[in-house]
């Protein structure tokens, strides 16, 4: 039974990005001016706490970015499944039960019955109209009315305790690691961490990690037997959808930047450094692009993409591939609308830098333009690039939701928080309200965006010398 690896375009870019970040990390480790601010970031309590949460998101996103075509040779159901979804990810494998246990239609979080009445055939052949039992959610309960509360409570407790235990184990491993690297012994290190005395606020990291693990294992316990966040219209688990949406959100937030960075950096620095007609041309380009309101440019571009795709439907092997290309295209077009801000910043900064004494000194040594840009200008604008990248991230994640709502976001078949909200919105008029899709998407998005915002604040404070001096 061999699964053949499938590398989608965005997957390739994700790993390129990972490589890029890794290389930059190695480069930065050797440069004090880059290492210093990062040290400030990991010494901030908010910094480490948000890092823990962000790493959870990143881990899910990365797992979800390893795709393969499963071979269902041994699987009798292979035939019909291979039709609908041909490509699955490593993450899908991990949470296979979530993916497979589909109900008929809506059910509330942790419910045992469907949300809509149906005609049910009783054992005696009569038909009554009632809420039917769910096929999977709470199926193990003999009498839901009686056992449900106790079961949920029991599972919750088990989950929380497990989370606590894992945290304790991890904490001890951390103490041991720290103790092996410096003096003070295990107890000393543990005391230092727990009282929050050390330079790196391990305590905050541990608390955040503990809370995260407890919630996670609680969710794992419950979603093993129930639909933790309910099911949607076609009966798909909402918790699963929300988790799958993480990749989309992260991708929009990062790939967009990756796509726009080369142009923004190159053109921005060139405009500021060379001035003259180069500057005029670049300024003209970005003013023109910037003049078209972003949403409309995206709308127009996506409309055009839709036309192209519907006319060339045969070029795409699968729905997944098609949705993936649309996501990539969305990133590119978002990049086109958002590179101008960074470009303008870099232009201004380069313009200042080219007059600075050390650049003048380099000119006086007969150093060439290329060398000056690489050695003097680029390293001194890098912090601006970094700050912009981090600041833009959360805005892009939020933008995805809005765009998907307007139908110019990611493909409707793709899991994304925007699509979840979009589909949930239609049900808000229902009585009683179907609220869980909306809430699930909001909670996941809010956690990510809030962490990213707090993290970017810490990063900006650490990297922006002007702000640092005013404190």
């Amino acid at each position, binding site marked *: 039974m061999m699964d053949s690896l499938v590398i989608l375009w965005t997957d390739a870019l994700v790993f390129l990005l990972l490589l890029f970040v890794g290389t930059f990390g190695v480069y930065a480790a050797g440069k004090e001016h880059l290492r210093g601010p990062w040290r400030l970031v990991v010494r901030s309590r908010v910094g480490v706490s948000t890092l823990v949460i962000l790493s959870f998101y990143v881990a899910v996103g990365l797992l979800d970015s390893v795709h393969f075509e499963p071979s269902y040779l041994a699987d009798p159901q292979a035939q019909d499944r291979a039709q609908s979804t041909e490509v699955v990810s490593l993450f899908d494998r991990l949470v296979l039960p979530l993916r497979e246990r589909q109900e008929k239609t809506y059910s509330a979080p942790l419910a045992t019955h469907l949300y809509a009445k149906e005609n049910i055939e009783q054992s005696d052949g009569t038909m009554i109209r009632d809420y039917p039992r769910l096929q999977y959610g709470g199926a193990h309960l003999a009498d839901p009315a009686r056992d449900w509360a106790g079961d949920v409570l029991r599972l919750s407790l088990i989950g929380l305790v497990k989370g606590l235990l894992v945290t304790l184990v991890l904490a001890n491993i951390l103490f041991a690691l720290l103790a092996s690297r410096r003096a003070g012994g295990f107890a000393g290190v543990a005391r230092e961490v727990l009282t929050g005395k050390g330079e790196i606020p391990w305590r905050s990291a541990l608390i955040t990690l503990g809370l995260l693990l407890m919630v996670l294992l609680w969710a794992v316990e419950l979603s093993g037997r129930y639909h933790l966040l309910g099911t949607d219209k076609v009966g798909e688990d909402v918790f699963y959808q929300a988790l799958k949406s993480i990749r989309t959100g992260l991708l929009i937030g990062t790939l967009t930047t990756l796509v726009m960075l080369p142009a923004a950096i190159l053109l921005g620095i060139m405009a500021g450094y060379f001035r003259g007609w180069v500057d005029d041309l670049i300024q*003209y380009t970005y*003013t*023109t*692009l*910037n*003049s*078209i*309101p972003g*949403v*409309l*440019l995206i*709308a*127009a*571009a996506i*409309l*055009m993409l*839709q*036309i*192209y795709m*519907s*006319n060339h439907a045969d070029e795409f092997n699968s729905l997944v591939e098609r949705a993936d290309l649309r996501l990539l295209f969305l990133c590119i077009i978002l990049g086109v609308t958002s590179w101008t801000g960074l470009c303008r910043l870099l232009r201004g900064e380069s313009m200042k830098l080219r007059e600075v004494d050390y650049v003048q000194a380099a000119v006086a040594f007969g150093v060439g333009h290329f060398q000056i840009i690489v050695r003097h200008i680029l390293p001194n604008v890098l912090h601006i690039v970094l700050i912009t990248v981090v600041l833009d991230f*959360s805005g892009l994640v*939020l933008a995805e*939701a*809005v765009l998907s*709502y*307007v*139908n*110019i976001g990611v493909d409707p078949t793709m899991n994304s928080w925007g699509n979840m*909200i979009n589909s949930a*919105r239609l049900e*808000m008029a229902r009585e009683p*309200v179907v609220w869980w899709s*909306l809430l699930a998407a*909001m909670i996941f*998005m*809010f956690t990510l*965006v*809030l962490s990213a*915002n*707090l993290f970017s*604040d810490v990063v900006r404070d650490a990297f922006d010398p002007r702000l640092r001096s*005013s404190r």
Partner: protein
Amino acid sequence: MIAYIIRRVLYAIPILIGINILTFVLFFVVNSPDDMARMNLGMKRVTPEAIENWKAERGYDRPLLYNAARQGTEQLTNTIFFQKSLKLFQFEFGVSDSDRDIGYDISQRMWPSLAIAVPVLLVGLLVNITYALLIAFFRATYIDIWSVVLCVVMMSISGLFYIIGGQYLVSKLLHLVPISGYDTGLAAIKFLILPVLIGVVGGIGAGTRWYRTLFLEEINRDYVRTARAKGLSEGLVLFRHVLKNAMIPILTGVVVVLPLLFMGSLITESFFGIPGLGSYTIDAINRQDFAIVRAMVFLGSVLYIIGLLLTDISYTLVDPRVRLS
């Protein structure tokens, strides 16, 4: 000063031309009118006649740039580029798929858009500046710290949630105002309250935080120390000195978006069923009505450029350093 404004106006012309060409390429070159027709008619019943018909109805049956079949200037004017793209400069937007004059629709629909966008801007500005001043007054205290946390939290909530949550809470649970809809004249007010309120609340996080940064930046300047050395009270220092300097970036930031207020807000309008330009655009996108989208792209760009122009002018008005140099 006048020479400066004229120069800025002249500078706008090549940009408008650039935008025009860009939209032309996007709408007619990337995909041919045939593709559009096929898409719009649906794959099933595409016959060459149907496509020709569709194109003829919309005037897309002309050549793109050069009409060899005509004589004289018609060779250039009787083309898609001239008819569909260059005519935009005259604000001739043509006819939509539903056979309505786009120019007329726009002139009708911009008022509801303004009715929401203007109050949101003004009330938002007032609320944000007041709050930011308050934070600046209590800087480096717990009020400051928790206000910033509040702002970040508010910034992190999706705008969609404000709308959905607001509609649910105010309209559905409390029944204070209708969920959506619009009316003419003063009767519109009850439909406007909620969208305006939500617009303001949704903007507090980012706005206040930005203004706070501006204020704090000014507070650290030397002239503030001079003002204190004169014996001015902290309130006077903030109001007379800091606010006045910080208002320069705030005002010019507002001026950029002033013309764009006409465009309305896509999301708010479609959620609240307000017949403004925002919902017009969304409907057009969903119906794939290219004529309207094209018109809105161009209109939006023109308004943005007017905004840039106004910004340049407002700088010269607000900042004495620019005015007199």
